[in-house]
């Protein structure tokens, strides 16, 4: 190491500072400087890639932690007391001893902080040591290094499924077009693939990129946290500048997908990366209980001050009484006595020191310890563990566990939260004909009920993807069928690898074609009329009209799987590396099945196939199939080089799950999307022929148009064809009247028929899409192209103009058909919703879907019951909205006041759409809306934006002053999650953004039930009881000292040794209440789940109220009176000395305080017993040892041999027994009498819990008999019902006609009751 002058160091530091602050950074390659010392490195000023999220360093831990801790009010109080101890006039003895409690408390807190920080350190280290490939000039290749060694200016190679270690400027990819797909779910929760383009023209696109030849300078902006913006240019040696933006930046934390490898230049590293700049530490929330607690602490302060005041005045009066100076008044060292007034004043402060523990400052640290324990138990609950994703519940907010027990409103997202967000193609309607796909429905039903699924024999030959669709499917002989069945069973076991990548599970990928439709297509195929047949067009539209990316099922690299191990850390970035875990990892498939129970829910044939492919990836493909590709145009030929690209092992990755589902559906009918490049789309037809469409343009989806289109040139007819898909209302108004000549006149019918089908789909809860086709004449196309180019080239209003051109083209469409896609409800959602409802929680659903779908989902998950009164609010202007709101409110009030409706279980539900919601939430209507919502059991908000979601939560939370919980899974729920008291994120298909913003992360909606009903109830009850107990304990103990003041001239003398007093609070009586707070169970989990009503005890004010607080304070006063005056009366007029008098009092209060706790403890486990007995034993051992050893150790306290002599005296025991009994008798009696005369629901539940299982169930049923426990009716196949007229500007109960009810008894959720009881305007 060369010596450098300090001046040079300073200069260097300054230069570094300047370099970092500069708006533009010039970055050069590190390679020419490789091996040189640091001073010569061009990028030495920029931070390395190692990251540090820890708060403290090893050396500075103590000062920094102390500084943190002194920010807390409780600690400041404590320190103030310690300082007061050192003030001479206060006459505190042994002021050093006063330091002990604060030291112990702060040490505990520091240990906790250190442990948390250590965990962060570990996760940092793990991340920093993740391997990656950096180019090394010495080795002439990319060599394996760890993330922390990455520096700005390095070249990093990232392979498929690997996580990008730093912000990279993409220079080269394995893709000939220079495209690299990334998945940014770690950053923004979006799972779709985003293409990133290599900076063009910077490096020669050799097959292999030569980093050494890179001699340009990269100029980029200063790091910022905007994930969607990046500005930079590359300056070549010849001064040519090439600009690049966010489309060329690979962000740290993203996963590279679909690209074999990519090479990038590191522009930002470590803390300066965009993802790290976006990472804003943990959030601090304060629970409702703690807010209440703080108020009570203030009461304690008032109590303390008034007691000190009494002491002060008492001392003054006491001094005033003396005619002369008595011998026991000790003057100060000058022989001078303070005047009574001054002494009284000083005594005030001495009293504060004496009575200081009245403020339960140890309460705060105890609460934190208790919460850590509670979180331990929550995260360790096996019921909240999801096997499929191998994830437990995560508690991100450490301070609000008890809020879980007080929830009154739940705001839930729909897609992905209530539903699985796994889109499954269910049925379709083509040219006005409905194809119900019965077999497919059966398959789905089988998947849903795994147990019975074993018995089902498929009488339809399942579609085997590797053989493609065969026309002879139905001729299969029975043996073969049996074989297939076996095969299926076998593969069901093997194929259950956890799928982390969306849309890849067989549930979504496999569609069993409808037999009739299949026959129809085969007829069309063979008839040769395929150029114009609308059926073929429909499927082509399905396959083409999307932005689905085709990826090959390449076997996962060994390296990539290593990432997956770090998944369950708290760190979101680490957690997200799970995406690297591809289902095609064969080791996964082979090994995981052993751990799975037989009844795995997925079926996969693919996995078996993959296995073969893995062994011989080239051979299988090559045969014959490539012949078909000869007809391909030039663009497609690049794909044909890829040996793995066959229909069998393509997988699709789409922006939205719906698109993938449609493509898979098309594939099931033989229309396989084979490849998509920027300029072409390749589709294999059922006949095996490959069609390569020239992709002319894609009119992307936007929220205004609610549709997307693809403009292609048909390879055979050379016509320009526009395929459009979109929401029904966005399509229907654009339909043209002219189609092929022979269909003229029928078009209208098709539209109405399709509309019927669509309505029916909506009722069934299916997501609907319409497909249209339009042939664009060459002339129109050319003129449009000009407009389009102009729009694209426009500088101002570019987006609007582009959209306009899209609208221009999307006219006169011809309807092909419609699809219904099911987003299935998650497992036991209805059950959970019913339980939550019974628990007194109102569940609101906020969704972006249309009202019909939302209402349907509402029925399916039992948010709405069939007899419920459903109010549908949808209006166009504010005036209307106001009047509707007023009328409804009046009506609802009248309804709920109507005595006839008292016993009916009929409830009111409100369905409101986004536009109306905005009006209803405006400041003047807010109150009315909230008032109305209060009367509704459930509210469904449809078509709401993320911002509206959070607004709803905020309004309800603030107006109704209730505890709210928001649960969601996607980025659009983040606002809502953050606005609620508790945000719960579901780590599902939509990435981690919701999870990152949440306080608790669960993997399934059903986990909410146990999390709230059991853990929430427990955490709340435990903590509330513990806090009340803590207040009681301190008051009861301190008051003993206070009563003594009346007998010692208010001189702040204690009859208990100072050390023993401190030990008493810190050691003898601290552990049992903490264990109580962590482990007590007032009711068993089974009971809490079985009787959700019990949850209501915690709602609203809950158990911790003003009354309970003051009752316990009064009880403490009573107990301290008893605990002091019984010994006083017993020792009156005797020769008892101070500590001999105090010892039984101390012992009595130990027993009283511990036995008081044992009255409160509801379930005595071995832990409770050990801590209880341990505390008593500790008291006696420590006190005995201390009084035996301390002869002169710490004057003035001197308890020598006192407990020993007391324990030899029978009076001591007699005194202890009677005092403890008298002190606890009232509380005990109160509990006994209340439990006997008016048992609380909790008490009744505990009684039930003791009964044996069968009697218990009987009782439970009887107890809850008023509630109907009907089964959830699942949606079944049924003919489409006749359409109902939509009158959106009206309030109307969802009323299907009577014929509907008669016609399809299988349709779910028909509202029956409201026919008789409509709401009048």
């Amino acid at each position, binding site marked *: 190491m060369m010596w450098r002058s300090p001046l040079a160091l300073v200069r260097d530091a300054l230069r570094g500072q300047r370099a970092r602050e500069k708006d533009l950074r010039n970055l050069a390659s590190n390679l020419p400087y490789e091996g040189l010392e640091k001073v010569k490195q061009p990028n030495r000023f920029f931070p390395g890639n190692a990251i540090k999220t820890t708060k403290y360093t090893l050396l500075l831990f103590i000062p920094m932690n102390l500084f943190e801790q002194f920010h807390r009010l409780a600690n400041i109080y404590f320190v103030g007391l310690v300082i007061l101890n050192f003030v001479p006039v206060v006459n505190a003895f042994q002021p050093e001893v006063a330091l002990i409690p604060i030291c112990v408390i702060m040490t505990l807190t520091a240990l906790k902080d250190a442990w948390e920080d250590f965990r962060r350190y570990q996760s940092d280290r793990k991340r920093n040591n993740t391997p990656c490939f950096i180019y090394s000039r010495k080795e002439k290749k990319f060599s394996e290094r760890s993330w922390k060694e990455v520096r700005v200016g390095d070249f990093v190679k990232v392979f498929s499924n690997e996580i990008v270690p730093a912000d990279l400027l993409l220079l080269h990819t394995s893709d000939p077009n220079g495209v690299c797909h990334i998945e940014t779910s770690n950053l923004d929760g979006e799972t779709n693939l985003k293409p990133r383009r290599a900076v063009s023209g910077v490096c020669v696109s050799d097959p292999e990129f030569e980093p050494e030849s890179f001699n340009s300078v990269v100029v980029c902006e200063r790091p910022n946290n905007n994930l969607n913006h990046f500005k930079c240019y590359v300056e070549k040696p010849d001064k040519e500048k090439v600009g690049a933006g966010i489309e060329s930046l690979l962000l740290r934390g993203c996963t590279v997908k679909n690209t074999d490898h990519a090479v990038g230049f590191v522009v930002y590293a470590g803390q300066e990366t965009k993802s790290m700049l976006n990472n804003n530490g943990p959030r601090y929330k304060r629970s409702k209980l703690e807010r209440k607690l703080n108020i009570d602490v203030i009461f304690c302060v008032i109590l303390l001050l008034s007691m000190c005041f009494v002491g002060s005045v008492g001392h003054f009066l006491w001094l005033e009484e003396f005619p002369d100076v008595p011998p026991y008044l000790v003057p100060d060292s000058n022989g001078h006595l303070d005047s009574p007034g001054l002494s009284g004043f000083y005594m005030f402060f001495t009293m504060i020191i004496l009575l200081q523990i009245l403020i339960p400052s140890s309460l705060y640290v105890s609460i934190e310890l208790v919460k850590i324990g509670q979180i331990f138990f929550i995260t360790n609950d096996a019921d909240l563990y999801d096997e499929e994703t191998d994830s437990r519940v995560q508690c991100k907010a450490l301070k609000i566990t008890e809020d879980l027990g007080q929830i009154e409103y739940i705001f839930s997202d729909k897609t992905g939260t209530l539903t699985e967000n796994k889109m499954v193609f269910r049925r379709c309607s083509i040219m006005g004909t409905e194809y119900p796909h019965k077999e497919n429905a059966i398959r789905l039903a089988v998947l849903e009920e795994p147990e019975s699924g074993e018995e089902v024999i498929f009488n339809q030959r399942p579609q085997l993807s590797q053989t493609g669709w065969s026309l002879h499917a139905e001729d299969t002989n029975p043996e073969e069928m049996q074989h297939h069945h076996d095969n299926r069973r076998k593969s069901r076991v093997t194929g259950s690898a956890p799928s982390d990548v969306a849309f890849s599970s067989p549930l979504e990928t496999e569609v069993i074609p409808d037999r009739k439709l299949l026959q129809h297509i085969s007829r069309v195929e063979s008839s040769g009329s395929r150029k114009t047949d609308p059926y073929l067009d429909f499927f082509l539209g399905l396959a083409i009209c999307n932005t689905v990316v085709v990826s090959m099922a390449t076997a996962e690299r060994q390296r990539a799987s290593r990432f997956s191990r770090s998944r369950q850390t708290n760190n979101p970035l680490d957690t997200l590396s799970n995406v690297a875990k591809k289902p095609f990892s064969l080791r996964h498939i082979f090994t995981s099945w052993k751990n799975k129970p037989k009844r795995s829910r997925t079926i996969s044939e693919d996995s078996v196939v993959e296995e073969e492919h893995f062994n011989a990836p080239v051979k299988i493909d090559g045969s014959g199939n490539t012949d078909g590709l000869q007809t391909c145009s030039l663009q497609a030929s690049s794909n044909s080089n890829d040996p793995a690209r066959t229909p069998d092992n393509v997988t699709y990755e789409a922006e939205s799950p719906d698109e993938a589902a449609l493509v898979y559906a098309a594939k099931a009918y033989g229309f396989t999307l084979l490849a998509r490049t920027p300029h072409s789309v390749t589709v294999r037809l059922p006949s095996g022929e490959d069609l390569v469409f020239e992709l002319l343009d894609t009119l992307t989806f936007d929220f205004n148009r609610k549709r997307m289109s693809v403009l292609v040139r048909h390879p055979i007819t050379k016509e320009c064809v526009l395929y459009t898909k979109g929401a029904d209302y966005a399509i229907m108004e654009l339909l043209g009247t002219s189609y092929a000549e022979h269909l003229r006149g029928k078009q209208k019918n098709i539209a109405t028929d399709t509309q019927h089908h669509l309505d029916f789909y909506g009722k069934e809860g299916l997501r609907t899409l319409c497909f249209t086709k339009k042939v664009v004449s060459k002339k129109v196309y050319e003129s449009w192209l000009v407009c389009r180019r102009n729009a694209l080239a426009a500088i101002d209003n570019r987006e609007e103009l582009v959209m306009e051109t899209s609208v221009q083209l999307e006219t006169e469409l011809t309807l092909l058909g419609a699809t219904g896609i099911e987003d299935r409800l998650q497992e036991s959602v209805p059950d959970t919703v019913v339980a939550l409802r019974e628990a007194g929680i109102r569940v609101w659903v906020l969704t972006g879907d249309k009202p019909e779908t939302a209402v349907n989902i509402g029925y399916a998950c039992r948010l709405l019951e069939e007899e419920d009164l459903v109010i549908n609010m949808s209006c166009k202007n504010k005036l209307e909205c106001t009047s509707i709101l007023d009328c409804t409110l009046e009506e609802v009030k009248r309804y709920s006041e109507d005595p006839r409706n008292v016993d009916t279980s009929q409830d009111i539900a409100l369905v409101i759409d986004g536009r109306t919601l905005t009006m209803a939430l405006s400041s003047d209507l807010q109150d009315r809306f909230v008032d109305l919502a209060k009367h509704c059991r459930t509210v469904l908000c449809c078509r709401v934006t993320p911002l509206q979601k959070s607004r709803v939560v905020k309004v309800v939370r603030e107006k109704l002053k209730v505890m709210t919980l928001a649960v969601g899974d996607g980025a659009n729920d983040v606002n809502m999650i953050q606005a609620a008291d508790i945000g719960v994120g579901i780590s599902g298909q939509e990435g981690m953004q919701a999870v990152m913003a949440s306080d608790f992360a669960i993997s399934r909606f059903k986990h909410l039930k146990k999390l709230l009903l059991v853990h929430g109830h427990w955490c709340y009850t435990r903590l509330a009881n513990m806090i009340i107990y803590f207040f009681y304990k301190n008051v009861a103990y301190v008051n003993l000292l206070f009563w003594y003041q009346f007998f010692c001239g208010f001189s702040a003398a204690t009859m208990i040794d100072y050390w023993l007093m401190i030990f008493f609070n810190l050691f003898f009586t601290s552990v049992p209440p903490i264990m109580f707070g962590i482990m007590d169970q007032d009711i068993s989990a089974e009971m809490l789940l079985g009787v959700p009503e019990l949850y209501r005890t915690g709602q609203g004010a809950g158990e911790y109220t003003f009354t309970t607080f003051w009752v316990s304070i009064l009880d403490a006063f009573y107990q301290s009176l008893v605990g002091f005056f019984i010994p006083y009366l017993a020792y009156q*007029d005797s020769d008892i000395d101070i500590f001999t008098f105090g010892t039984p009092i101390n012992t009595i209060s130990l027993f009283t305080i511990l036995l008081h706790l044992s009255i409160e403890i509801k379930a005595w486990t071995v832990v409770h017993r050990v801590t209880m007995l341990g505390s008593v034993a500790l008291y006696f051992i420590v006190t005995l040892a201390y009084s035996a050893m301390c002869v002169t150790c710490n*004057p003035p306290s001197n308890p020598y041999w006192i407990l020993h002599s007391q324990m030899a005296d029978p009076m001591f025991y007699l005194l202890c027994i009677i005092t403890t009994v008298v002190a606890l008798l009232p509380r005990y009696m109160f509990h006994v009498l209340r439990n006997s005369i008016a048992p609380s629901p909790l008490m009744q539940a505990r009684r039930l819990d003791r009964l044996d299982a069968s009697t218990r169930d009987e009782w439970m049923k009887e107890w809850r008999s008023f509630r109907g426990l009907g089964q959830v009716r699942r949606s079944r196949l049924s003919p489409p019902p006749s359409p109902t007229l939509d009158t959106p500007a009206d309030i109307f109960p969802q009323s299907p006609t009577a014929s509907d009810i008669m016609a399809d008894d299988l349709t779910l959720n028909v509202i029956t009751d409201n026919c008789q009881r409509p709401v009048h305007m």
Partner: protein
Amino acid sequence: MVKEEKEIANRPDNTAFTQQRLPAWQPMLSAGIVIPGFVLIGLAFIGIGVALFVTSRSITVLEIDYTGIEKDSACFKCSNADVKNCVCNLEFSIDSLFEGPVFFYYGLSNYFQNYRKYAASRDDEQLSGDLDAFTAPSDSCSPYDYNGNDKPIVPCGAIANSMFNDTFVLYRVVNGANKLVPLDGKGIAWWTDYNVKFRNPSVTPLKNAFNNTVKPIFWPKPAYQLDASDPANNGFINQDFLVWMRRAALPDFRKLYRRITDGEYAKGLPAGNYSLTIAYNYPVQSFEGRKKVVFSNVSWMGGKNEFLGIAYLVVGSLCVLMSIVMLIVYAKFKFPEED
């Protein structure tokens, strides 16, 4: 197969502890269950109460106030602080045999030995015979640590300084003549005080240890001359000193002065007339205190105190009463499953 373990790495342990299913005893507080307990406790308490009450009743106590505030009091003349070395005689009679062993106490009222600063005003090091503490008493003794000439006071502190110094001689009046009742001054202090806590410095003669120190301001004699009759009863292990140094917990207290155990009085004080000669030294007017002498015999439960016996009786009966109440409650509100 490492992978296999990884696969379920996050599965929580399925133990009774982590799943919160530890076997637990769930006591149910309700009338039907607690009745037997209440009856049992009530009866036991009544039993103890009776025993305590009977024992307490058997204890005889004789208290005589000799403050001398009242004009007709024998010690009235001595209550004037100006009179030095005042002696007064207290006559009293005992009707029946005062069963022995009789304990002879002096009592003070309104005397706050538990006053915070007073109770701390002593030096344990010094009292345990530490010679260093003789020359430099602890701060806690202030202002009774040094006299005006900066000489250390031994024993220092307010407690020692204010030691009670009335002395008593008891005579039995037999046929008009005073017959001395022997008082036993040994073993009236705690054994641990006498043997462990308080030690004289191991200097012989004891007087030398007190060189360069002065006696407490209020004391007439230095510590090594506290008991002229018994050289072993001097210094810090003087029994009267030890008794005084054990600070009383409450402002009205008594302290053991002597025991009457010798010879013919071992069985107690026979009936008859007695005369108590009091050397009245200790002033109590400054705090409106009272002084008294107490003769008492003791039982296993200590001195006479009827409170505890009564308390046990009351609480015991209360428990029995409660159980009756609960029986009614139980009959009325019982949970059917309790049968």
